């Protein structure tokens, strides 16, 4: 057996191991379990999915689909623990609305209603609370969704960090949508609705830990208008949507490559990145593809509809920098590859560890 045959054989063994369902074997929860990378995957696939044996949950969509007489509804929930509470371009209240309505939107559902659950730390200034409730109200109005139920809890000083917010969202699945994480086909084009990494970078800089001066704002915004435009432009040719939050675009691509058993090739030079985000990422040694966004979606579209879909994205609010960044292929299955801007090629694997805790 030649050296390269041996190498290929060993890589084959690794891929088999990698494609297996992740296990949860850790002695304690670490911050990495919250980062959206491999540890999170282990927690979800190793502990949560087996416990509930729910086909809706097993589909690993951003929202679960429930069939009722007369239609399908999408249901999703999300907790927000971002630190600091306010940051350039947004705050926890706005994030809590947009994060949840976006999970509905990328499931192809028009957001209808939200619940709002607050965990407040003893001593939180009423002014800060009032500002965040205002932010929730404004964001809900902008997303055209009503808050229909809620809950409040208070814990002793030191047992929470200011405030944590949980929202649950209900949406009506649009009849034009037939989306699924396992629906990707070789040849599908990968579209991205704008620049990557703005939110995570804005939060990082807002913490003031790095003494980097850069004007970067969070991209938090509701995505339903963009989804609505995509469904109009591409209809059934739109195979899957994801909002690229925690773990960034790289994590979304890896999850879907696994779910659909396909390969993806991303052209690094075509990925839009704000120059200040690229600069900060360079200094911190972080790849913007792994940095969180709060108003960016990744769309997988059949090739014949890709051009129309991209035009629709670009015309949607906040979509002016939308781009086609790559395509779905057959080989090597479950892997995401990058054509580097320099002309080489590499793997883009799932995130390991947690470079940026508590960004949402």
């Amino acid at each position, binding site marked *: 057996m030649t050296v390269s045959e041996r190498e290929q054989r060993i*890589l084959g063994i690794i891929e088999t191991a990698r494609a297996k369902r992740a296990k949860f074997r850790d002695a304690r929860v670490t911050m990495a379990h919250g980062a959206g990378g491999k540890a999170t995957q282990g927690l979800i696939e190793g502990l949560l999915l087996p416990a509930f044996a729910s086909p809706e949950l097993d589909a690993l969509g951003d929202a679960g689909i429930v069939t009722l007489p007369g239609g399908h509804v999408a249901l999703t929930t999300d907790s927000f623990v971002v630190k600091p509470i306010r940051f350039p371009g947004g705050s926890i209240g706005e994030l809590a609305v947009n994060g949840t309505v976006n999970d509905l939107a990328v499931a192809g559902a028009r957001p209808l209603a939200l619940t709002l659950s607050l965990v407040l730390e003893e001593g939180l200034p009423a002014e800060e609370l009032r500002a965040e409730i205002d932010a929730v109200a404004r964001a809900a109005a902008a997303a055209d969704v009503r808050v229909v139920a809620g809950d409040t809890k208070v814990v002793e000083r030191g047992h929470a960090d200011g405030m944590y917010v949980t929202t649950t969202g209900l949406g009506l699945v649009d009849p034009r949508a037939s989306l699924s994480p396992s629906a990707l086909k070789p040849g599908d084009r990968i579209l991205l609705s704008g620049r990557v990494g703005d939110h995570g970078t804005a939060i990082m800089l807002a913490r003031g830990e790095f003494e980097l001066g850069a004007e970067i704002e969070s991209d938090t915004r509701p995505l339903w208008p963009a989804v609505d435009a995509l469904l109009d432009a591409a209809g059934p040719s739109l195979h899957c949507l994801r909002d690229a939050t925690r773990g960034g675009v790289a994590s979304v691509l890896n999850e879907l490559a696994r779910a659909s058993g396909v390969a993806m090739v991303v052209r690094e030079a075509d990925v839009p990145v704000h120059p200040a985000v690229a600069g900060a990422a360079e200094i911190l*040694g972080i790849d913007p593809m792994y940095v969180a966004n709060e108003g960016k979606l990744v769309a997988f579209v059949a090739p014949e509809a890709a051009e129309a879909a991209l035009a629709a994205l670009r015309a949607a609010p906040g979509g002016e920098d939308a781009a086609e960044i790559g395509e779905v292929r057959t080989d090597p299955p479950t892997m995401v590859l990058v054509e580097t801007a*320099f002309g*080489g090629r590499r*793997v883009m694997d799932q995130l390991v560890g947690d470079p940026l805790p508590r960004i949402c």
Partner: protein
Amino acid sequence: MRYVEEFRDAELGRALAGEILAAVEPGRHYKLMEVCGGHTHSIYKYGIDDLLPANVELVHGPGCPVCVIPMGRVDDGIAIAHRPGVIFTCFGDMMRIPGSDGSLQDAKAAGADVRMVYSPLDALRIAKANPDRDVVFFAIGFETTAPSTALTLRRAKAEGVRNFFCMCNHVTIVPPLRALLDSPDLRLDGFIGPGHVSTVVGARPFEFIPADYGKPIVVAGFEPLDVLHAVHMILRQLAEGRCEVENQYSRVVPYDGNLRALEVLAEVFELRPHFEWRGMGFISQSGLKLSAAYAAFDAELRYEVPGVRVADPKACQCGEVLKGVIKPWECKVFGTACTPERPIGTCMVSSEGACAAYYNFGRFAREREVV
């Protein structure tokens, strides 16, 4: 990003690749070692070896600061981190390095106050903000990062900070290179010299490589064009029968190094008689500790630590990987028992580690042509 993008130009890269091809002697196999983990990272991140002919093989060297830390030192750090009142600070990668019973990240989850910092100055800042706590910085790295630790300690001393301590694991680059060149199981044709280290020590300390061992070395920068350029310069030396130290990274590296930085190092640190390296055993005069003038800041004097030498896990072949004797995928546990999320060896942790770089980036490189 000006002054960076210029060194990532794909067209210039292709042109340089053409020149490399022209400098290759047909049928000859070249093994070049990039000493520094920063180069390993660049090579995989940009897919640089995709632009090289298949008979130019890049071998990864020992210059990854996190990778060379032996398990016993991690255990000592964890023991300090668990002491009541201690805030333990380290770089992010260091948190995931396995000790004999878990990592610093596990210690944090178990209740130790372990915090990730981006520089020793961050650690000093934490010390000043928490005057009633002991703040310990786990210092790692070659001559590249040692000056920033030294300057931080100098500042702590000048400001009279009494609750800041350093567990020093700084190492020097020349002794492991000598150990490597003395080891019989390695045949190399030349070295890509460590650019960042050389900004401090200069290119002169590497003169022993051509003089004593007859191998060319080219000190190189970290952008993809720098690496390709260095490969070309080494191949040219070999083709022309030259053997010398050349400086590709002259825009940053002065041949004699940074004298001010070297002065600070000499003030704050002194050589240990010997220091243990992961997988490479004890190498004499290869590690630094705090000098007598800074003894009050030395965490190893402040706390009792186990100080036990812990043997590497049996299956782990980090030593052979660090010496370039085997490729990452040739290790018995690579990618199966040892993965970035559940590492056995250090090389699988740091983004500069050969195994992590190969696992994360390097699989499925393009088929290359042999010339």
